[in-house]
């Protein structure tokens, strides 16, 4: 089932949480809503679920498979919702928690006891917790609670699955295992899924597509590859991974950042405008000296060799910190020591001048 959000706004008092958001989630995809806290991603998720009403002005609409569900009550949308803190029923066992959605169905459509049992057992198998069906939520670890919450949401055979920060409350190790598991699970059951996260790594790893949100608006929608390599805005680039940010001006068709000059093909027409240059740490190269090339001078302040890559910190002009990452192999070819004066050149960068992007 596809989800379509059409021009939806939501304000809480004076605060505009969503500002005319439109989004299309194709059938069967696993999509991440990524953004910092306060960007409106959870609000959007709750509006899709029907837990929150959107502002009735304008022509806002929520459509499931082309059908308007805005006026449909929460319980009738057949949405599976996994809450950030799981919201398991504390006085019910794991089994009863999962069975809940089936037991509360109105008489005519309610499955028989045997059917409910079979369905719950099947889900327990799916989440690999068959032996814990008699436990209460407080007797489970965080990861187990998360899986029970997911099974409970899947029990009603939802048309769409919505997950609010599904791994937010777990420690790093469990988190990684669980997100791979979620990816595999999605490949198995193929229900249209939308999950909220503020962790870019999580989004890049799990999702088919990523929706980057900021201040109640959607900044970019694309595959993990697209949003990472072709960020539509400085915000997206900054939010997805580390970046070095340089401020400069446009002069004679070129963007000037101190001793570093970026000359876009075709040149820039807007002289005097301020420009921002974003460079990922792994796109910077360190050389002993510049010899008239465009780049930045600095001296090494820190070299971190532990870990899969080498991380080097430099102090540039005006002591601006510059972060460089490279492979161990490359570092062995050009080693550097703390205090050494070096020259840094970008291999790749992105220039943002007002609305103009390269």
């Amino acid at each position, binding site marked *: 089932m596809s989800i379509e959000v059409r021009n939806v706004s939501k304000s809480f008092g004076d605060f505009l949480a969503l500002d005319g958001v439109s989004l299309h989630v194709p059938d069967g995809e696993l999509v991440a809503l990524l953004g910092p806290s306060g960007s409106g991603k959870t609000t959007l998720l709750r509006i899709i679920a029907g837990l929150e009403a959107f502002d009735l002005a304008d022509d806002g609409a929520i459509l499931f498979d082309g059908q308007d569900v805005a006026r449909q009550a929460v*319980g009738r949308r057949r949405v599976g919702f996994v809450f950030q803190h799981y919201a398991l*029923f504390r006085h019910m066992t794991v089994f009863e928690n999962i069975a*809940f959605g089936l037991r509360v169905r109105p008489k005519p459509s309610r499955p028989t006891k045997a059917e409910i049992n079979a369905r719950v057992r099947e889900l327990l198998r799916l989440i690999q917790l068959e032996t814990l069906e008699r436990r209460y939520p*407080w007797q489970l670890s965080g990861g187990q609670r998360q899986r029970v919450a997911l099974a409970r*949401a899947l029990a009603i055979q939802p048309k769409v699955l919505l997950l609010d920060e599904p791994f937010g409350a777990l420690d790093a190790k469990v988190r990684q295992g669980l997100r791979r598991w979620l990816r595999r699970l999605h490949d198995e059951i193929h229900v249209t899924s939308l999950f909220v996260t503020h962790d870019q790594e999580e989004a890049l790893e799990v999702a088919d597509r990523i929706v980057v949100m900021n201040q109640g608006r959607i900044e970019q929608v694309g595959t993990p590859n697209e949003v990472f390599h072709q960020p539509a805005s400085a915000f997206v680039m900054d939010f997805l991974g580390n970046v070095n940010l340089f401020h400069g001006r446009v002069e004679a068709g070129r963007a000037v950042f101190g001793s570093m000059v970026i000359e876009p093909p075709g040149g820039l027409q807007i002289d005097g405008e301020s420009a921002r240059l974003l460079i990922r740490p792994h796109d910077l190269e360190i050389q002993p000296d510049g010899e008239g090339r465009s780049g930045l001078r600095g001296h090494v302040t820190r070299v971190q060799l532990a870990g899969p890559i080498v991380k080097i910190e430099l102090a540039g002009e005006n002591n601006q910190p510059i972060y460089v990452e490279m492979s161990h192999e490359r570092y062995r070819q050009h080693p550097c020591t703390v205090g050494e004066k070096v020259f840094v050149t970008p291999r790749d960068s992105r220039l943002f001048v007002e609305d103009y992007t390269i």
Partner: protein
Amino acid sequence: MGGTAKSRLRGRRVAAGLAAKGDPTWVKWLITCASLCFLLLFLGVPLVAVFTEALRKGLGAYLESFQNRDALSAIRLTLLVAAVAVPLNLVFGLAASWAIAKFEFRGKSLLVTLIDLPFAVSPVISGLIFVLLFGLQGWFGPWLAGRGIQIIFAVPGVVLATVFVTFPFVARELIPLMQEQGTEEEEAALVLGASGWQTFWRVTLPNVKWGLLYGVILCNARAMGEFGAVSVVSGHLRGQTNTMPLYVEILYNEYNFVAAFAVASLLAMLALLTLVLKALVEWRTQGESEEAFTPPTAAAAEAER
């Protein structure tokens, strides 16, 4: 309730800290003895006195005190009042705490303050309010009298005054509990397709059942023991509007000490029973919240992998 469990734990730690600092044992003993003596003097002795006085002329005389019609009618009226006031306040308490804990609305803080009103005013004043409203000289008195309805100096007045005095108990108990639990579980139930009614019976109510019971026990104890407000509106009509506490006073004023203390002993027993039930419920809820605080067991962590 988890809060009390935690603070108790903290108390224990502080005590241990003192002992570690080598506080003299005699200080500990002195403080403990002082508080025990105080308790004995002001709670133990009166309680014993009630039962001694009641049994002064033997068990026969004690039991005979309950044989007469006035005594029986006082007991019946007390039970009737509690039977009306407690369920009413149970429903009101649930509704009020639900509204306050789960919804945002204008005038919420006013409602919270109003719920505390009976605690804030003297019970005698509460009684007088009802006399002012429904008495023969009161606002609605003449209108009601014209239709042959008597409230003041009659059973309805006694019930009304008791309901008023006891209504904060259940709500006060539930509001913090429900606020702590939040609305996520209810939302989860609604998303899963439960109706509002199903959500209430299957999720909200089971989650607060021990707190609710606790409130009901306290409410019942107060409903049966209320004196001030009831005294003002009852008119002390023997066999008609006398509740047990009022009846005790009458007997005492007539120098009928055995009967007075015999009836008083019933109220004392009710108090003791309430304390036991209260302790049981507290023990139960504390157990639950401690379970909730227990970190996942090693086995659970193992199963995680």
